């Protein structure tokens, strides 16, 4: 009986590993393999191609693998610039998202118990509309003859339209808007679960409301800030749709570079190498996130 239960347990525990193996590790290894191949005018557009019936020839084909695609990335400054510009745009967007999300999350967490579930639903309500449509909608808001410029012009605040659309600023606005719920929810969670008597204790010990916020509420929100920032920063680096729709022709982001290499240049090895390097870059903040999660769990 015990042995059978442990088998069932092992199946249950093994399921996520099988999932990761089939849907993450194997595709990743395929991408790594393609990144080590060479572009070719063939179908598929790279060489060598391994087949099941290769036998000993597979060993010969192994010799054709090379780091040429990675060398190409290192040679051309364009790639490094794309990575750096992606990191910069993601970092700026994350900072703005935090600045917008914290007051929202704070107000939600301090709202009465009757209002909280309603506010939570409102915070995630944008997810009910297609992401693509919501980003498209920003074009009509931000473009030169768009809603924003119309409003500012008719209010007399500006005399000529602001050129926000098709710029890095538009990309930042798009990312802040799109990823806001991912920042709000962990922040809300971190603020709402702070016992209210901590603030009373701080007030009792002479802390003004401002001092109590900076000494108590803010440091205790740190796990939520870290979680929210990583949840925004990591996907924002590889973001493709937002820079493609809202960015200008000079907006350089790595997701776009990857798209161009893959679809326009049909250079699968370079596109794969771009993806592998991006993943390697992302592993660092993700490991940091894991560690912060571990530290948060009481031992």
């Amino acid at each position, binding site marked *: 009986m015990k042995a059978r239960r442990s088998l069932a347990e092992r199946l249950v525990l093994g399921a996520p590993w099988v999932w990761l193996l089939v849907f993450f590790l194997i595709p990743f290894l395929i991408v790594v393999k393609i990144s080590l191949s060479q572009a070719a005018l063939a179908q598929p557009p790279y060489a060598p191609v391994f087949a099941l019936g290769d036998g000993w020839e597979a060993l010969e084909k192994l010799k054709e693998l090379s780091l040429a695609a990675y060398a190409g990335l290192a040679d051309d400054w364009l790639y490094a610039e794309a990575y750096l510009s992606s990191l910069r745009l993601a970092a700026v967007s994350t900072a703005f998202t935090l600045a917008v999300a914290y007051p929202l999350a704070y107000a939600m967490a301090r709202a009465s118990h009757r209002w909280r579930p309603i506010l939570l639903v409102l915070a995630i309500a944008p997810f009910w509309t297609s992401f693509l449509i919501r980003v498209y909608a920003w074009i009509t808001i931000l473009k030169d003859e768009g809603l924003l410029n119309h409003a500012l012009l008719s209010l007399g605040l500006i005399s000529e339209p602001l050129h926000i659309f098709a710029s890095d600023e538009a990309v930042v606005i798009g990312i802040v808007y799109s990823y806001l719920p991912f920042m709000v929810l962990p922040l809300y969670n971190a603020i709402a679960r702070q*016992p209210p*008597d*901590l603030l*009373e*204790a*701080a*007030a*009792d*010990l*002479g*802390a*003004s409301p401002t*001092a109590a916020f900076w*000494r*108590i509420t803010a*440091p*205790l929100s740190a796990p939520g800030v870290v979680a929210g920032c990583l949840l925004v920063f990591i996907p924002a680096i590889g973001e493709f749709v937002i820079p493609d729709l809202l960015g200008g022709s000079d907006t350089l982001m790595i997701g776009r570079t990857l798209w161009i290499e893959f679809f326009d240049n049909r250079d699968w090895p370079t596109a794969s190498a771009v993806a592998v390097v991006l993943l390697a870059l992302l592993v660092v903040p993700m490991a940091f996130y894991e560690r912060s999660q571990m530290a948060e769990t*009481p031992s």
Partner: protein
Amino acid sequence: MSAAPLITFEHVTKRYGAVTAVDDVSLEIGAGEFFALLGPSGCGKTTLMRLIAGFETPDAGRILIDGRDMADMPPHARPVNMMFQSYALFPHMDVARNIGFGLAQAGQPKAAIAARVAELLRLVQLEGLGARKPDQLSGGQRQRVALARALARKPRLVLLDEPLAALDRKLREETQFELMRLQRELGTAFMLVTHDQDEAMVMAHRIAVMRAGRIEQLGAPRAIYEVPASRFVAGFIGEVNLFEGVVARVEDGLAFVRLNGLNALVCAAVEGAVGASVTLAVRPERMLLELVRDEGLPGVVLDSAYRGDTQVARVRLANGSLVRIARFGAALMPERGAAVRVSFAPDAARVLPA
């Protein structure tokens, strides 16, 4: 009590919607006094304490601390500190920073804070634990950190909100004596809020028994126990036997009361007009129980309990009412089912308003 009270409540009322939590309370607490607010949950004692700390504002009346009206004084500007029932220790700060928090807020120099924190750690016997985080402490240690934090700023009054509720029985008793020692040595006024009559009786100089937002009785523990002002106070502070009857005659300052439902006269050293209905209250330890005498009220032992230092028996009288009798020491109690006589000395009874 000294001439100038430390805390003065003048007709203070606090309402929450339809509920009046504190109802027209007037009260004075002296400097250096150990004062207890005692009552069942929902009696308004916690609200009264929060009014002093400034977390609530009165709907009517005034609260004075050292003669100054606290109406517009926010909590962080009041010369009182509170030890929270949950302790409310800051989880991200170590013990030393928790204790020093109030001093840092007051802008004291680092060296002065460190010296005061070390002094407080010694006072509450937590030397060497300054670098621990609250979640690395036992319940009793956390309690002492909370106490040290409340004492750090040398407040005029320390509010203790159910300070022992989270401790086990043995630790609770030790801590009671510890709090009394601290209060005596520091000379700071303590205000204890509790629903535990033992706690209040052991520690406080004066007790205010609260019920439904009002102070039912205010006095020294001995006075409250021995001369309870009402049925509620008598029942809330310790055990009490109640005998209802009508005064039949009065002789030499002794009232002879005919008990309802019993064809018996009892004699009590109380005031009372002939023909008046009275309720006599007698503490269990003042009850007499005998097997052989033919005087006293006949009854049957329902059950008895041996508690080591005391023994308790419950006796059912002919009218169905239960009488509780307590004995100290090892004297044997009659067994279950024994026919007994119960009585009390005339000076053991108090009259309670009906």
